């Protein structure tokens, strides 16, 4: 009789821990979902900036037009830098799933270098435009252009800063539960920025040069 009761209590205990695990799991997904909601609100910011560009992008005020300014071969290079950084981040996540701290860090560093390369290209482009007199003050087209592309660039910059902080955290604490969660959050952020860039190069650069 007593053994039977012990067994049931054991059973109960096991079920309890399982339940606890489940609760932990839900807590975890809560963070990812919350971060996703943040990304969606960011998406709305970019949506309004795209709408602003769509409305103002043809008002040159007798200034330069996209066809005069944009150099598509350089934009193609930036696009590929960002695309490569996306796939290297993916490799980092795969290494993390294998529990390989060193590999995770190395792929994250490569990702950061691609991100920095993208930022370098953007700074180069902006300073070149500025030199030509194509400042944000020149026309409504250029105001909306700098706002949209600059906001994306600032996001990439904050992503790079986050990446450096994350590398430090990985170095100090290793692949803990919290760090894995952080890596996954930055992963979403990073891929999301690449997604926005698709809109930028299609809508601003390629379509801008054409029409």
């Amino acid at each position, binding site marked *: 009789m007593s053994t039977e009761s012990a067994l049931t209590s054991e059973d109960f205990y096991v079920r309890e821990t399982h339940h606890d695990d489940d609760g932990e799991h839900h807590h975890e997904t809560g963070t990812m979902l919350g971060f996703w909601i943040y990304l969606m609100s960011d998406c709305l910011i970019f949506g309004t900036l795209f709408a602003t560009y769509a*409305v103002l992008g043809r008002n040159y005020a007798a200034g330069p037009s996209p066809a005069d300014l944009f150099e598509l071969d350089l934009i193609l290079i930036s696009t590929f830098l960002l695309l490569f950084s996306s796939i290297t981040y*993916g490799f980092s996540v795969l290494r993390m799933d294998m529990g390989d701290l060193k590999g995770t860090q190395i792929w994250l560093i490569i990702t950061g270098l691609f991100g920095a390369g993208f930022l370098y290209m953007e700074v180069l482009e902006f300073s070149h435009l500025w030199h030509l007199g194509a400042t944000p003050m020149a026309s409504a087209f250029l105001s909306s252009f700098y706002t949209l592309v600059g906001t994306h660039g600032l996001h990439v910059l904050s992503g790079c800063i986050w990446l450096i902080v994350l590398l430090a955290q990985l170095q100090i604490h290793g692949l803990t539960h919290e760090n894995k969660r952080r890596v996954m959050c930055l992963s979403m952020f990073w*891929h999301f920025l690449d997604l926005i860039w698709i*809109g930028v190069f299609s809508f601003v650069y390629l379509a801008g040069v054409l029409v």
Partner: protein
Amino acid sequence: MTASAHSNHEDGHHGEGHGSFKSYMIGFVLSVVLTVIPFYLVMGDILGNAIWTVAIVFALGATQMIVHIYYFLHVTSQAEEGWLAMSIGFTVLLVVIVMTGSIWVMFNLQENMMPGHEQIEQIRSLP
């Protein structure tokens, strides 16, 4: 061992998937193709027709966004019990309303507020 169990788990359609090497590579190759084609069309002026080229560039851009969402962000209809797909659907709806609404309203405003040449002449010839 846990890693292999994990990736098995991932290969399915369950929630917090981190993807596999294969899925990342498929996404990457598709993205490269979908990036190169529009740049090629525009830089080489292949079609010679701006309207068609823009239409194709937008269509390929939208396709690449879907590729990114599926292969890199791992959003499926089952992820997070459907909440990811739900929120992205809602966001896309809002963005579409804001975009089309702005373009529509501002286009009409510009059309109707800018006096045409004839109107200016009419006003000039008023006594």
